[in-house]
């Protein structure tokens, strides 16, 4: 196996919780708790979980938009966890981000040309003379008119804006693109267009995606592998087909059961259903974080933090037991 493009080892990100007049630190939100992941060149890895589980924080920490509180991030074998200043800025070229909200992610004061062109010039990927041609090229690639360059973001629809955001990310010819809920703010029909666009763009170059999402139908369509997070921890990582066919963790099973069905009347495998609310990430439950909601929890789940167990060479799961299949 060749070396992973991005190799994340035991990544941690804590946010201090302050309270009182003196803003004393009274605790920490363990937003990302010892996450280890690898992304191969050309691969799409989806990071899924419900709101507040830390998936966006984890992804942003991996591309150094946030500073890690522990663990290591290796990009093409190079440790980038503590890069600073110019070295960090140069490295950023290789990992770009497509944001969730296409209305907030484009500076309303800058034209499309400035938004896409400035990073290229900044990183020396284009000169003043050929930047225009390159930008027109990019706009065509993301399905926009090349003469949109002089327009401002407010003149575009949400889907068009997201295409501009994608063009900005691609302008730096990155090896890794982190898509932070890149389609969840769009209409369903536009979502499909953007997802197909992302897939087409990946086919044309050797580019990896780190795809943060909560929409499992989207994930199933784009991802090669899926990593499931619950309250800051990874609970299951598996190839997409295998995860959807054979989910091992009760949380993954519950997530899949909650997917809207194309044929609601047709009977299908009944999966686990979770009761209760997501616990506060400030004081997560002891042991396995899921035990208060888990329908198959045992006594030892309250104290034992299960290690990630390999079900096979590419499927790992964090649960104290192999679940009986509720076929």
């Amino acid at each position, binding site marked *: 196996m060749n070396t992973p493009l991005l190799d994340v080892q035991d990544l941690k990100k804590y946010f201090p919780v302050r309270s009182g007049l003196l803003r004393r630190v009274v605790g920490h939100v363990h937003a990302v708790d010892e996450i280890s992941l690898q992304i191969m060149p050309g691969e799409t890895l989806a990071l899924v979980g419900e709101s507040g589980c830390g998936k966006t924080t984890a992804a942003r920490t991996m591309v150094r938009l946030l500073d890690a509180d522990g663990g290591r991030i290796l990009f093409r074998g190079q440790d980038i966890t503590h890069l600073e200043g110019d070295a960090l800025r140069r490295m*950023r070229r290789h990992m770009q981000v497509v*944001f969730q909200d296409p209305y907030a992610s484009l500076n309303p004061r800058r034209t499309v040309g400035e938004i896409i062109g400035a990073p290229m010039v900044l990183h020396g990927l284009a000169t003043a003379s050929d930047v225009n041609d390159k930008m027109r090229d990019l706009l065509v690639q993301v399905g926009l008119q090349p003469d949109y360059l002089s327009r401002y973001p407010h003149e575009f629809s949400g889907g068009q804006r997201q295409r501009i955001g994608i063009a900005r990310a691609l302008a730096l010819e990155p090896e890794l693109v982190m898509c932070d809920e890149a389609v969840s703010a769009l209409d369903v029909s536009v979502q499909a267009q953007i997802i197909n666009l992302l897939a087409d763009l990946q086919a044309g170059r050797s580019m990896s995606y780190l795809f943060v999402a909560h929409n499992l139908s989207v994930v199933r369509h784009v991802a090669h592998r899926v990593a499931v997070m619950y309250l800051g921890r990874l609970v299951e990582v598996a190839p997409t087909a295998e995860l959807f066919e054979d989910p091992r963790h009760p949380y993954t099973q519950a997530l899949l059961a909650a997917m809207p069905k194309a044929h609601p009347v047709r009977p299908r495998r009944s999966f686990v259903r979770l009761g209760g609310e997501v616990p506060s990430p400030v004081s997560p439950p002891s042991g396995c974080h899921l035990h208060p909601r888990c329908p198959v929890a045992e006594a030892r789940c309250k104290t034992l933090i299960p290690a990630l167990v390999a079900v096979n060479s590419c499927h790992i799961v964090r649960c104290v037991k192999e679940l009986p299949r509720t076929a």
Partner: protein
Amino acid sequence: MSDNGTLWHDAWMRLRKNKLAVVSAWFIAGVVFMCAFGPPILHYAWGYSYDAQALSYGAQPPSLNHIFGTDFHGRDLFTRTLYGGRISLLVGLLAALVAAFIGTLYGAVSAYAGGQIDSAMMRFVDVLYALPYMFLVIILVTIFGKSLALLFIALGLVSWLTTARIVRGQVLSLKEREFVQAAQACGASDARIIGMHLIPNTLGPIIVYFTLTVPSMILQEAFLSFLGLGVQAPMPSLGALINEGANNMVVFWWQLVFPGIVMASILFALNFLGDGLRDALDPRMQQQ
């Protein structure tokens, strides 16, 4: 969600509908034009100047030759008022520019740096706020001497505080927007993010506050001139002229009335324009 591009356009349309603001803008343009080109024309056509005295001529009431009358030293008051307007507008504009420049930079850096640096920088502003600031100007003027350049620097130095607070508030909310993170992800430096992404998006409030600072600066300069700390004779400013006129108002009423009317109408016009801009740029007015 407001669209800033259309916001500018809408603001312009709203401003044009505000008759008071439009009239004020034209009035200010007229005053600026007269102050700039009036004195040389008066000098070449009639030989009037702001400092050549004709003591034997003395104080004359308004007439066709001297529409504002003359002062105690026989100088044409219209010429002196235009000169005074020049000085007052210059001081007002430059002091407000200094204030807006320092305040914007300070507020943006403070908010962008955040945390301890932000706290320290804002406590410094709080301390300056607590000082009686006219007192500070008087100290600065007495230490560094009475020169026109120092006057507007001194005024600007003590009046950037509110701008800094306004800009800081704006940047605090802006820096959480994703386009700032996008710029970071593209490898933009902090200076570039502040200069290209944050400050341009705070321009609306800065412009409004700027237009409201200009009249207050003119008023401060008048007050300083009134105390004898502002512009020095024979150079006139509107404040100095009003001071002089107030001393002689029982006998030579025109020496107070004309500079007073000019100053009051400039202040009114600037405030009306500032109010108009504030209303026009307020996104909550968008429905109208």
